[in-house]
C-alpha cells in the first residue's frame, strides 16, 4: 500500500458548530506511526472539540475521520479500540483504587485477563503509581490523578494516543515524567495527538505542530517551518507606560516592522534588522505619547509565531 495507508490518523475537513458558534472549521490533519502531532491554541480554539470527534465521542457536522484505516464514528467500536484517549478533565472513579480504575477500563477495552494483569503492572510503573496502586484515586494528589488519567488511556496499547492538555496542574517533576513517557511511547511507534497551550511542551515533544485559533488551523509544520513563516526577523519587546495599543499601532507604520501587537503593557514587534530599526521604533513610541521603560531583543519562538498569526497571546 502507498503512503496514504500508512497514516494512523487521517482527518479531513472536520467541522462542528454549537448553535451559531463554529467551534471547529475545516480542520484536516494526518499523523503517521511514531509521530507526535501537536495542536497548539488558546482557550476555546476548538482543540477539545476536534479531539472529541477524532475519538468518536462527537459526530462531526462534516468531514471524515479514519483511524488505523477504519472510519471513526460514534458507533465504530473497531476504530475506537485503536484509540487511547486521555481527556482534558480527569475521568477516573475517585472511589476506586488506581488498579481498579485501570482494570475497569482495561476490561471495557476488551483486554484478555492475562494481558490485562501484565499491562496493569507495566502501566502502573510507567505512571509511577506502583506504590500507590491500591489506594483510592480520590486520595491522590492532583499530579497523581493526572498520571492515572494518562495511564488509563495507554493501558490497552492503542495505535493512536490522544492527550488533551495532560499536564495542566502537574508539578514540574511529574510533568517531566509525563513528557518522557510520551516521548518513549512515540519511539515505540505510537502516533500521538497532543494538545496544549504550553509552547515549551509543543516544542519539545511534537514533530509537527498545528496552530489553532477560532476553530481553524492557521499554520502547520515543524517548529522550524513555523518559525520560518516569520522570516529572518527579530522579536522586540517594549515595556511601555501609557497606551500600549496606540504605541503598537504607531510602530506598525514603520516599514521595517511586519507586525506589532499590544499585550497588557508590552508591545511585541517583529522587526527586520532590530539593531538598525530600534532608534526609529523608540522614537515612534515616544511620539505616540507612551514612554518606554524596558527593551528586549531576541530570536522568535512559537509564541511569537502565534502572536503574529492571530494577534493574540497563547495564554490569557
Amino acid at each position, binding site marked *: 500500500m502507498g503512503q496514504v495507508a500508512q497514516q494512523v490518523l487521517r482527518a479531513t475537513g472536520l467541522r462542528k458548530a454549537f448553535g451559531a458558534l463554529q467551534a471547529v472549521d475545516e480542520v484536516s490533519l494526518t499523523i503517521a506511526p511514531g509521530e507526535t502531532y501537536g495542536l497548539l491554541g488558546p482557550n476555546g480554539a476548538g482543540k477539545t472539540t476536534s479531539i472529541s470527534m477524532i475519538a468518536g*465521542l462527537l459526530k462531526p457536522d462534516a468531514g471524515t475521520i479514519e483511524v488505523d484505516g477504519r472510519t471513526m464514528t*460514534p458507533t465504530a467500536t473497531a476504530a475506537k*479500540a485503536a*484509540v487511547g*484517549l486521555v481527556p482534558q478533565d*480527569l475521568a477516573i472513579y475517585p472511589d*476506586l483504587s488506581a488498579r481498579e480504575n485501570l482494570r475497569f477500563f482495561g476490561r*471495557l477495552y476488551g483486554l484478555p485477563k492475562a494481558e490485562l494483569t501484565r499491562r496493569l503492572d507495566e502501566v502502573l510503573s510507567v505512571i509511577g503509581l506502583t506504590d500507590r496502586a491500591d489506594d483510592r484515586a480520590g486520595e491522590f494528589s492532583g499530579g497523581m490523578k493526572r498520571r492515572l488519567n494518562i495511564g488509563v488511556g495507554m493501558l490497552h496499547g492503542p495505535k493512536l494516543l490522544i492527550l488533551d492538555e495532560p499536564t495542566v496542574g502537574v508539578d514540574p517533576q511529574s510533568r517531566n515524567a509525563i513528557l518522557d513517557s510520551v516521548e518513549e511511547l512515540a519511539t515505540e511507534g505510537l502516533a500521538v495527538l497532543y494538545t496544549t497551550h504550553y509552547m515549551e511542551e509543543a516544542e519539545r515533544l511534537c514533530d509537527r505542530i498545528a496552530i489553532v485559533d477560532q476553530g481553524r488551523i492557521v499554520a502547520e509544520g515543524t517548529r522550524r517551518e513555523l518559525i520560518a513563516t516569520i522570516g529572518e526577523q527579530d522579536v522586540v519587546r517594549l515595556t511601555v507606560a501609557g497606551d500600549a495599543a496606540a504605541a503598537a499601532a504607531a510602530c506598525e507604520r514603520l516599514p521595517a516592522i511586519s507586525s506589532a501587537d499590544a499585550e497588557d503593557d508590552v508591545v511585541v514587534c517583529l522587526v527586520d534588522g532590530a539593531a538598525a530599526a530600534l532608534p526609529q521604533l523608540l522614537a515612534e513610541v515616544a511620539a505616540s505619547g507612551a514612554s518606554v521603560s524596558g527593551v528586549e531583543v531576541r530570536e522568535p519562538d512559537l509564541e511569537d509565531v502565534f502572536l503574529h498569526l492571530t494577534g493574540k497571546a497563547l495564554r490569557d
Partner: protein
Amino acid sequence: MVRIWTIARTELLRMLRDRSNIFFVFVFPLLLVVLIGAQFAGSVDARLGVVGPQDDATLDALLERLEAADGVAPVRMADEAALRDEVERGLMSGGILVPDGLDAALLGLDDVEVTFIGRPDATATSLRTLVAAELADETLAIDAVALLDALEPRSPAERDELLAVAALVGGQAPGITVAAQTLGSDELAEEFAGLGQFDLGASTQLFLFTFLTALTGGVALIQTREYGVARRMVATPTPVRVIVAGITGGRLLIALMQALYIVIATVLLFRVDWGDPLAATVVILSFCAVAAAAGLVLGAVFSNDSQASGAGVGLGIGLAALGGSMIPLELFPEGMRAVARLTPHAWANDAMAQIVRRDAGLVEVLPNVGVLVGMALALGVLGTWRLRAVLAR
C-alpha cells in the same frame, strides 16, 4: 455480556464502598422493621375505650384498677358509636360498654352485663380476660363492703372475721358478667388477624428502602457522568447500549441485593413470613426492576447531584408513604387509595398483602406483577433514551 457485568459490578462495588450507604441500605431498614413491629404489636399499653355512667363509684374503682394494671390504658369515650368506630379502625384495642346503675345493681345483688367489644385478635382476647378479672375483683370488694355496712362489726377482730366471710361469699356473689362482642364482620380486623408482629413492616419497608436506594443511586449515575467516566466509557469500544445496560444492571443488582438481604435478615431475625416463595420472589423482582428504572430516569434527567439526591429522597419517601409503605393501604380513605394506585409501592404492597395474609399464589398476584413490569418498562425506556442522549453528547 462481560462488559455489562463489569459496569454493573463496579456500580455495586462503589455503592458498598460508601460507609453511609451501608447504614442506609442494611441497618436502617431493619431498624424500621423493628419499630413498625413494635407499634403493630402494641407493646405500648393497649387502649381500652370505656363508655359508661359518669358518677358510678364501682366503675370509677374499676377504672382505677385498670389504670394500675400492666399493658392497658383505659380511655373514657362519649358513646357507643364512637367506641365501635375507633375499635374498628384499630385506634382502640378494645372497649367496654357499662350500663347505668352499676353501684345500685351490685348492692341489690342484681346481675349486670358489661359488653366487651373487640377485634378477633390476640390483643382483644387478652384484654377481655383482663377486664373480666379486674371486674370480678372489684365485685368482691364491693360485696364485702356492703356486707360490712350491713352487719356493723363491733371490734376490729370481728371486722376481720366478717371480711374473711365476705371474701368467701363475694366469690360466689352474683356480680357482673362480661359479654363479648367481636367485630368479626369487619374486613380490616380480618385483614391483620393472625399476622406476625413483624410481617407487616418487613415487606413494606423492603419496598420503601429498595426504591429509596435505587433513586439515590441515580446520584451515583450523575457522579459517573460528572467524573467524566461515562464519557470515557463511550470512548472505549463499548456500544452505548451496553453501557446503559451495565449501568441499569448495576442499579438492579443493588436493589436485588438489598431486597434479598432484607428478606433473609427478617426471616432469620424476626421469623417473618413472606408467603409463597415464588409469588413473593416475582413481586419483589418486578418491584426492583421499577426501582432500578426510576433511578435510571432520575440519574439521566438531572445533571446536578445535590438536586437529584433531594428529589430522590423526597420521591422515595413520598411515593412510599402514598403507596402504603408507612401506613397500611387499608387504612386509607377511598379517594387516597385510588391515588395510591399511581405508585409502584401500592401494587407491590397489595400483592404482598395477598401473598402473606391471604395465602395468594403467583396467579392471584399476576395483575399486580403485570402493572409493575409495565411501569418498569415505561421508566426503563424513558431512562435509557435519556441516558443515551446524554452519553452521546
